């Protein structure tokens, strides 16, 4: 079930629960949490080559939690996640990266950061040319290349 770009219901529930622990929604910043349905759907749709490692991470999480993560009390959940982050290895790191990469390309999140909702190409960006008179002290100091005899 976990090898063909799909997660089990249990794995999806735990993914949603841990995503909300990594990035909860915020009224202050007016952003959704990483458990937002659209962001979760993006994760599931684009897992691709990360599917196996994410599934392994979620299976590891399930073993630590001995039950659905969302049903644990806060103290127990924190303890499980602490252990998961400490010893989860590459699989845990992959899961966290998947959560972050999908969160930080979501339209509402990027808008809240003041970023444009577009690919870099073809518009690109404009850079200030800057003040090249800042080079004057470097030119004044000069210097010379070390030369072989």
């Amino acid at each position, binding site marked *: 079930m976990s090898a063909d770009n799909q997660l089990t219901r249990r794995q999806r529930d735990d993914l949603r629960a841990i995503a909300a*622990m*990594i*990035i*909860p929604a*915020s009224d*202050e*910043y007016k*952003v959704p949490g990483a458990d937002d349905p659209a962001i979760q759907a993006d994760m599931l749709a*684009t897992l*691709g*080559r*990360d599917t196996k490692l994410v599934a392994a991470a979620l299976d590891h999480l399930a073993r630590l939690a001995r039950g659905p993560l969302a049903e644990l009390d806060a103290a127990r959940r924190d303890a499980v*996640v602490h252990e998961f982050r400490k010893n989860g290895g590459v699989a845990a*790191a992959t899961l*966290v*990266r998947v959560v*972050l*990469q*999908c*969160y*930080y*390309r979501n339209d509402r999140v*990027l808008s809240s*950061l003041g*970023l444009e*909702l*577009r*690919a*870099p*190409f*073809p*518009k*690109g*960006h*404009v*850079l*200030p*040319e*800057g*003040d*090249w008179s*800042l*080079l004057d*002290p*470097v*030119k004044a*100091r*000069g*210097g*010379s*290349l*070390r*030369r*072989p*005899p």
Partner: protein
Amino acid sequence: MKDPVDVLIIGAGASGAAVAWSLAETKMHILCLEQGGWMNPAEYPSTGRDWEAKFYGEWSSSPNVRGRPEDYPINDDNSPIKVVNYNAVGGSTVMYTAHWPRLHPSDFKVKTLDGVADDWPIDYEALTPFFEENDRMMGTSGLSGDPLSPLTHPPMPQQPMGLSGAIISKAMNKLGWHWWPSDTTVATMDYEGRARCINLGHCTPACAQGAKSSTDITYWPHAIRAGVELRTHCRVREITTDENGMASGVVYYDKDGIEQFQPAHVVVIACNGVGTPRLLLNSASGRFPNGLANSSGLVGKNLMFHPYAQIYGYVKEPTDSNRAPPTCLWSKQWYDTDLSRGFVRGYGVQFVRGAGPVFEAVVSEQKGILPWGEDHHRVFRKLNGHRLGFSAICEDLPEEHNRVTLDPVLKDSHGIPAPKVDYTISENSRKMMEHALARGREFLETAGASDICVNSPIPWGGWHLLGTARMGTDPERSVVNEWGRAHDVKNLFIVDGSIFVTSGGVNPTSTIQALALYIADQMKQRLANLFD
């Protein structure tokens, strides 16, 4: 049986493209075999909203992560620095930062100057015209007149300073340290059919605009128009030799996976510091039992990576983030030997403008400075778009135990033994890296940065693959002679980074290509008696 070609070049990257273009004027039949294919800029990451996520998969700089059919696996488990490269027409120039310093004149004579390693058999002056020619062909931008760098004449002006460059330059001025706009191969104006840079973001994973110079859009169109034949998706397994010990051709797998033999009068290897020794070692035969051109025993040895000591932090002002090419300024303040620092040789510095939001989030979470939970949003807004970096490119001295061999188990998709890398960072390099980190910390603190983080070495920083088939005049201490011809096989040439004797403290591609053009020129001058 295919007809023999006059010159067969293996690899269509930085050096293979340059040598093909240069030799084309001879009107010989020149064929290049490349294991990758032509790239399609419409598919480059910056054309999509998911551009950053691609760096962790199909556009990873590591062939082991990327795993494209064109890639071959590399066992680098026994190295703190992992190999990164790209396999396509254009090679790793498709996926480099386009930073364009040259080796310094002093880099060619380190034994004479500092009593370490070996002198090159050629000097900087021998390469000067080829540096110039290469800069025109690749199309460089920069500002002539850096007092601490070799004199260059970039045909295009330097990149804009941007927000990050202003912060960097003010801090360096406060400290009284050298800095200068980097020479790069990013076109800052329309140049030879290439559109100018529009700041798509980080240049490393290919440029959809075509402003970053890669040899698929610079040398190759010229070389093909001049008659060079380029066959893609052809992976060379071995170079064959005849009864006289001369190279007779290559065995390769074509795009359909069918084994082919291509005879050739001259073979030129352009596979860089890991691919070249792998090929030579895979070409062992009864006459050459330890690998082709390996009577010295040095094929694969003396691998030099350039350990990168990187330190970065976060300033209050906004930086350029991902809205600019990553490199804009360099420093040569600590390039030359000063024994009071506790090490020999030195390092160049390339400053880093910033990072995109996904990269920032992923890396900062891993570093432990971006928390989970409620405080995540506040901290992320403090970090994102405020990063400033200082990366020291430390000169790696040649050591025979740092080497490329053949892995006894690992093979590529054609069953060809894969390379294995064994590498340790020397004590001299470690001292150099510590020195660089201390200077970088001073710089960041002067710039007002906080949350300072270190990557030393940058683990996925094995961009520069040098030294594994070194050049020299002594056949017992080198693999090729002073004009790139194998001591043992008189119609076999090597033109890539593997022939470096020492590494300098700068990105090597400019020097690799100048060397390739120099060797091509030497070949052209000696066509009548090339095998004498």
